């Protein structure tokens, strides 16, 4: 401890790493003590028993061992198992639970992604029942899943979700089911008994799951289409858990390839069924159920990777600072002693990038989780709302809904205006209209969920590699503090399961063209310009310009054709649609990061314990936002330029030679209009031969709106590297704890 010294610093400095009070404000749970307690409770498990297992090398086995199994009890007693449950079934959080699950997964993945996956997979198995189950199914399985209440003598039942099948069946494409359901016995007036044949591949929690939600297709003309069905370990037939998957990652979750050959009553069809003309018609296809399940759980996965990135900051700073301490020439107090590798700019800049990515992905993920909390009450009453607004059921709904997007767009426009500048009566009318609210929120959720899953995990995995490389050789050993190399590998699984990147890109390429979403996106451009006026250093202007460029490009691509006259923006042209989806993710993450900065600065002032530190956090987060907005701008510019020009034919000397001036022509022209020559790039020699290159340079006729936007965006990067330097400086000054609060 040093002697007392006066605090002399004048400019706001980042004093400490952000603590709970900062996070509660940024991620909007400052007024939710149920969630704040959940965070503490999960953290104690993550940094206690989970971390100890990892440190002891429990990840070095594929099998589900006793010690790994002991984690289940730790999850139960800390309330992690019951987060998902309604209070009537022993849960402690009332209302939608997306943010709660997101926070729980974030805390666990801060230490170990496998623990997070294992804890969440139980919820995944139960989700189909929660989302679409009949009241009886919900009652039965929620109760079995819940921790025993006082006086009850039973153990908690655990669940798994079995969709993926051995090759050549379900993987990324979930349509081609190999699992089959047929009628085994159907006595007059009785419930049919069904026979299920299903093989699973890579099914999480299978080592101990007591029941499974399995996706199967009809293998019988007396059953229509596909469904999800509940299989129990004591059903007659084979319930083979299969051998453990030899995973290189997430070893604290149990994964295997199970085989089921079971007889079950038809009442196990999730969501129930009707019988028409002697045919069992499930109320929901497997596709409908997995859509409604994954759109929620994928957000949680995105947050796991965000947690890894943010968890890397402290160990990297500590390693860098202490790198040269204790050496022969080491002098305590010297810059080399104090800063170590932090004396090197590159080490700092790379950590700034990692931190900025972590912040942006957390902001995006938590925003998505909150949105689902808002959407849930509407979504669960969707059929009722549709009926009230004369939207037909089934496939016809899609067309009918498209025709209702206008009032939703109108609502978006009105909502973006100040109260005194809009037709308030109309605004309130639309706000009270549940269909409008559903369409608006749903359009956004359809984008935010895949964006968060795709970008957080995919780009996050790349950035985890950066974090690992900042730890040098240590970074690829089991002894690396913060388990960074394990987290790097784990991130790749997060990018893969619950729908790999291709699935997310595919979904985005459709949902991001929804006009109700695009109207919101357009309003955000204006909003970001406004933010830039108030917070010039935040990169909001850069972001607005990048958003504008992306939007122009999308609208262009939707109409444009390639050099062969073939339309560009089509489902099979993943070379066009997928990069645009990627580009959008960068923009969204950066936007939500800036929104969280604003929230922190506005609400932080109300928190007495933050008063002193707030200016420092504000300054640092402003710089981080700027860094991230510039990175997003760069990605977007690169992608948009390559798509706008990349499908055009390059001009060549033979067909486009007439656009080229000869040397002598130019001399004449220069006399008429001095200075003209400086604009000319292609000049024929005196003997008429073209310069040695592929052809005349490309002209931008018709692309002025693009080149203007692109030029503007480039200019908008002004100041972004200064911001990075500032953030780097802050990394050298921030106080970190003496040691990590979980074992090595």
């Amino acid at each position, binding site marked *: 401890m040093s002697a007392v010294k006066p605090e002399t610093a004048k400019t706001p400095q980042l004093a400490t790493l952000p603590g709970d009070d900062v996070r509660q404000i940024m991620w909007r749970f400052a007024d939710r003590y149920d969630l704040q307690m959940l965070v503490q409770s999960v953290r104690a498990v993550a940094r206690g028993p989970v971390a100890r297992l990892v440190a002891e090398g429990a990840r070095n086995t594929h099998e589900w061992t006793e010690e790994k199994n002991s984690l289940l009890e730790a999850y139960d*007693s800390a309330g992690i198992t019951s987060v998902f449950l309604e209070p009537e079934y022993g849960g402690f959080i009332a209302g939608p639970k997306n943010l709660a699950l997101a926070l729980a997964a974030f805390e666990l993945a801060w230490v170990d992604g496998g623990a997070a996956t294992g804890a969440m997979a139980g919820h995944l198995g139960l989700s189909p029942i929660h989302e679409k189950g009949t009241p009886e199914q919900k009652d039965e399985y929620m109760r079995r899943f819940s921790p025993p209440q006082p006086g009850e003598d039973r153990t908690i039942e655990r669940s798994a979700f079995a969709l993926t099948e051995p090759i050549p069946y379900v993987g990324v494409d979930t349509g081609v089911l190999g699992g089959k359901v047929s009628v085994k016995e159907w006595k007059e007036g009785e419930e049919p008994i069904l026979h299920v044949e299903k093989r699973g591949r890579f099914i999480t929690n299978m080592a101990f799951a007591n029941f499974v939600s399995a996706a199967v297709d009809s293998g019988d003309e007396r059953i229509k289409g596909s469904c999800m069905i509940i299989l129990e370990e004591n059903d007659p037939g084979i319930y083979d858990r299969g051998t453990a998957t030899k995973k290189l990652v997430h070893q604290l979750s149990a994964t295997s390839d199970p085989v089921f050959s079971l007889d079950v009553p038809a009442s196990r069809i999730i969501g129930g069924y009707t019988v028409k003309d002697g045919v069992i018609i499930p109320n929901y296809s497997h596709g409908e159920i997995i859509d409604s399940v994954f759109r929620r759980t994928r957000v949680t996965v995105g947050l796991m990777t965000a947690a890894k990135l943010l968890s890397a900051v402290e160990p990297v700073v500590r390693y860098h600072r202490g790198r040269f301490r204790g050496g022969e020439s080491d002098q305590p107090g010297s810059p080399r002693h104090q800063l170590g590798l932090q004396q090197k700019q590159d080490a700092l800049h790379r950590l700034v990038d990692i931190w900025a990515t972590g912040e942006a992905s957390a902001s995006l993920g938590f925003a998505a989780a909150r949105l689902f909390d808002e959407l849930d009450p509407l979504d669960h009453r969707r059929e009722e709302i549709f009926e009230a607004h004369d939207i037909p059921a089934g496939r016809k709904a899609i067309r009918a809904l498209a025709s209702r997007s206008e009032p939703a767009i109108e609502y978006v426009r009105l909502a973006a205006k100040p109260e005194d500048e809009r037709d308030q009566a109309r605004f309130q009318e639309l706000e009270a209209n549940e269909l409008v609210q559903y369409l608006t929120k749903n359009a956004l959720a359809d984008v935010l969920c895949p964006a968060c899953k795709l970008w957080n995990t995919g780009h996050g995995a790349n950035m985890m590699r950066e974090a690992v490389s900042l730890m040098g050789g240590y970074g690829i050993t089991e002894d690396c503090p913060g388990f960074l190399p394990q987290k790097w590998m784990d991130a790749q699984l997060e990018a893969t399961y619950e729908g790999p990147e291709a699935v997310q890109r595919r979904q985005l390429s459709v949902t991001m063209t929804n006009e109700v979403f695009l109207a919101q996106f357009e309003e955000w451009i204006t909003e970001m310009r406004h933010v830039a006026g108030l917070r010039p250093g935040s990169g909001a202007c850069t972001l607005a310009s990048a958003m504008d460029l992306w939007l122009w490009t999308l609208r262009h691509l939707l109409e444009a054709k390639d050099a062969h006259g073939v339309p560009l923006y089509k489902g099979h042209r993943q070379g066009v649609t997928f990069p645009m989806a990627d580009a959008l993710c960068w923009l969204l993450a950066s936007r939500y990061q800036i929104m969280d900065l604003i929230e922190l600065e506005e609400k932080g002032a109300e928190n007495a314990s933050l008063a002193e*530190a707030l200016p420092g956090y504000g300054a640092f987060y402003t710089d981080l936002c700027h860094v991230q907005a510039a990175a997003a701008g760069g990605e977007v510019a690169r992608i948009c330029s390559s798509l706008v020009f990349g499908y055009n034919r390059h001009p060549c000397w033979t067909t486009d030679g007439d656009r080229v001036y000869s040397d002598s022509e130019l001399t004449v022209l220069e006399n008429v209009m001095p200075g003209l020559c400086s604009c000319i790039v292609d000049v024929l020699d005196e003997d008429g031969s073209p310069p040695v290159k592929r052809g005349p340079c490309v002209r931008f006729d018709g692309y002025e709106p693009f080149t203007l936007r692109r030029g503007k965006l480039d200019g908008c990067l002004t100041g972004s590297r200064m911001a990075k330097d500032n953030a780097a400086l802050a990394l050298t000054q921030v106080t970190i704890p003496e040691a990590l609060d979980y074992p090595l």
Partner: protein
Amino acid sequence: MATGFHIVVCGSLVPDPLQTLEPVETPSGPGLKNEMMLPSVLDPWAAHALYEAAHLAGSTSDSKVWLVSLGPKARLQQLMMNIAQKVPFELVALDGPAGGFTDAYEVAAALAGAIEKIDGLDRSRLLLFGGRSSASRDAGVTMQMVGERLGITDQFLAVDKLTVQDDGSLRVLERIEGGMYLASGCEGPPAVCAWSTGELPEPPNNPQVGMQNMRTIMPALQQAQPAAVGAEGLDFQKVEVPQQRRDTKIVKDVPAEEIAREIVEWLRS
């Protein structure tokens, strides 16, 4: 007739021990660098007292536990998100500084005043618990003074074990030097017990308990009265920290004997 105990535990927050603690001069006197931002924990000795209190209350019917905490309100709220999940209690909060430069006399006065105001507290059944010491305010006298102010003269100041005998009397083991215990008998409440480490581990978090506690904790925090305990008017001419060397070392797979040997070596050097 009610037979259970009314146990009041005095305890507040201290900075998390993993943090880097650096004394600095602040506009309101000496303090710790980034004091308001450092994550905090319940003062370890007070925490032992709280766990012992909950255990005793749980095994003696008709008993109840209060936690009286004097600290910055916003920090106390953060602390509660963790502590409230451990054991059932009712919070009485006082809003004031809880750093190393408060005055034990003023603190004792504020705590005693707050305890006197607790609704429904039966002083004849009162066991006043607290820490024998504090991780940041180590005068070691606060509990004594609170007891005196409340007129409780049976005081035990380094308790490791408290047993309720069949006849309702208390048997108390207190730590004394040389690894010995002083065993005392006491007819019954009211009594003061300032705890050493006790015998109980930290209970795991249970959000159900937390949700139950929060019903009274949040209002208590909102109603927290300000307490002036910052030794106002006092002029610190010079502040010195004890000569201290702090070496943090993370080890893995090292047996306890080896760790003990290293610590002895370190002390000797």
